[in-house]
């Protein structure tokens, strides 16, 4: 028995080995490099000058940058909330259908946009929102407006694009948590005098809280690093931190400052996760 267990453990370690190597080489090492880079000066022609400095971090508090950082947080947070508001009714609707086949079909439809390329999906929105795009040309043909509305290259377009791209990240965990609720609890609630409306707010909503939290984080965190959507739909007017980071690495070739920005975002996300775990530590639901 004991021997079997030892063999089993060895086998397990053997299988774990490639993953450990992969994570170390491609994740841990770059992460440490970024941390290290952020404390050095930039080279004149890009690259790193190995002189210790904290200037990269103080630069973040420059008007130009911290406003973008603050806006990024607001946009990401708003995106998470909008995804929740749009995703909950959808997830609830799917979960409350009785036929499993119909449920699966609806879930696949939710995920379907995911199967097309991210860029193409975002480009489609440019087609819809542009001056000669679907919405404007229709409104003009209907003689509701004379001049095209300015839809594309606005904060609105960015928010819309983010909502569209991240909705499935919200719907899936929400669906999973609503689906997990014991249907007998609805009967019990009904039996105890709660109509459908009260049952939703007293049973369904609190019991799907883990799904809500997971969904919020799954949307909020990647939204923070977004640079394609604001680039394509927001133009130059509404950049997010992602755009600045991209510029620092690819255009301005200021790796240390880019690293500092990455580091700050990571710290904020880490802090948010720790806070979430602290607050909900004692609740298993």
């Amino acid at each position, binding site marked *: 028995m004991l021997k079997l267990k030892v063999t089993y453990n060895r086998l397990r370690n053997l299988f774990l080995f490639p993953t450990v190597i992969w994570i170390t080489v491609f994740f841990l090492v770059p992460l440490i490099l970024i941390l290290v880079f952020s404390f050095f000066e930039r080279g004149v022609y890009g690259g790193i000058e190995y002189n210790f400095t904290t200037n990269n971090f103080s630069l973040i508090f420059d008007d130009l940058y911290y406003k973008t950082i603050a806006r990024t947080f607001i946009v990401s947070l708003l995106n998470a909330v909008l995804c929740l508001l749009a995703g909950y009714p959808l997830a609830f609707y799917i979960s409350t259908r009785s036929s499993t086949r119909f449920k699966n079909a609806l879930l696949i439809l939710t995920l379907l946009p995911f199967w097309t390329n991210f860029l193409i999906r975002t480009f489609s929105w440019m087609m819809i929102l542009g001056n000669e795009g679907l919405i404007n040309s229709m409104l003009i043909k209907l003689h509701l407006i004379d001049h095209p509305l300015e839809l594309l290259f606005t904060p609105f377009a960015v928010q819309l694009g983010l909502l569209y791209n991240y909705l499935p990240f919200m719907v899936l965990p929400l669906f999973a948590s609503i689906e997990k609720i*014991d249907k*007998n*609890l609805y*009967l*019990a*609630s*009904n*039996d*105890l*005098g*709660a*109509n459908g409306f*009260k049952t939703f707010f*007293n*049973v369904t909503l*609190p*019991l799907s*809280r883990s799904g809500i939290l997971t969904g919020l984080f799954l949307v909020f965190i990647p939204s923070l690093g977004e640079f394609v959507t604001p680039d394509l739909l927001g133009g130059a007017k509404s950049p997010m931190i992602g755009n600045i980071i991209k510029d620092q690495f690819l255009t301005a070739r200021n790796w240390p400052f880019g690293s500092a920005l990455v580091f700050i975002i990571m710290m904020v996300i880490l802090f948010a996760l720790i806070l979430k775990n602290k607050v909900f530590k004692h609740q*298993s*639901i």
Partner: protein
Amino acid sequence: MSLKISNISKLFGKTIACDNVGLNINQGEFFFILGPSGCGKSTLLKIIAGLLQQDSGSIEYEGNLYNEIPAYERPFNMVFQNYSLFPHLSVFNNVAFGLKMNITSKEETKRKVEEVLAQFQISELSERKPEQLSGGQQQRVALARAIVNSPKILLLDEPLSALDEKLRVEMQQMLKELKAKLNTTFIYVTHNQEEALSMGDRIAIMNKGKIEQVSTPRDIYYTPSTRFIAEFMGEVNILSYKVYHTEGGISSTDILYDENEFQLSNPKTLIKKEIQIVRPENIDISKDPLIKADYVESKRGIVIQKLFKGNTTTYIVKCDDNRIIKATDFNTGFVELILTGNEVYIGWKSTAIKNVKA
């Protein structure tokens, strides 16, 4: 009659859960719906609660038609089979749920909940979550959650089936005490005969979606109306099989002793089929010859198997005519009087014999 159920039918796809069920249940009665699993008893209970809609038929309570009244407006409360306590709420808030939904003032809610928690001896658990409770404790909370709303009818869906034997007996006693204090009608669904017999005022036996008999526990046990009930309520010896039929205007009865022959026998002019039964405990067993005059039938045989059950022992006796008869006797002492292989005499009185529709 206070609760009147008429012609209730319910189909799930092609399966008939309830088939034209009719019941009249008096206010304050401890009423049992007893049947094997899958007989439709839980479905019937949910229809009464309003949690399921019947396909046809009506439910009347105190003369008012309840068909269109939703579950949350019916003055009935249910104790669910697996308790269905709200996992996100404390014991206190679980019990307070119904009161809150009916907008009871905070002080009154608190007073009522604390009163019920004390009554069920679970006051000290009031801050706990359901997952921190044992099965028995969850059961009490589920009961408290229903009772606190002072329902006119308390519906219990196999409430004790998840508990172990000792706890079950304890809870049975508690339920009986609770019932004695309230004028609430209890409708209790179970597949456990003993629970129904020991607690019920009346029992409805349900089989394959149909009610087969409604009567007192004593009647159900001693004068079952069908073979299904006779065999469901305990062990039986089938003495003979009778086929009543008419031939050319003259009625006649075939008496058979072979089960297979009985199953196949179905003359064109069949009136009815019956079996003659005797319960094992109504058969006297002795090592000495019995006084023939006392018994309608007595036989000699050999004990081929003994089943010791604590307070009773069931002897399986192979009689001289090769028939197998089960006889149950109380164990009165520590001495084993009859052993396997012993020659015994068995007999039964005419009052012990019942004719039952097959």
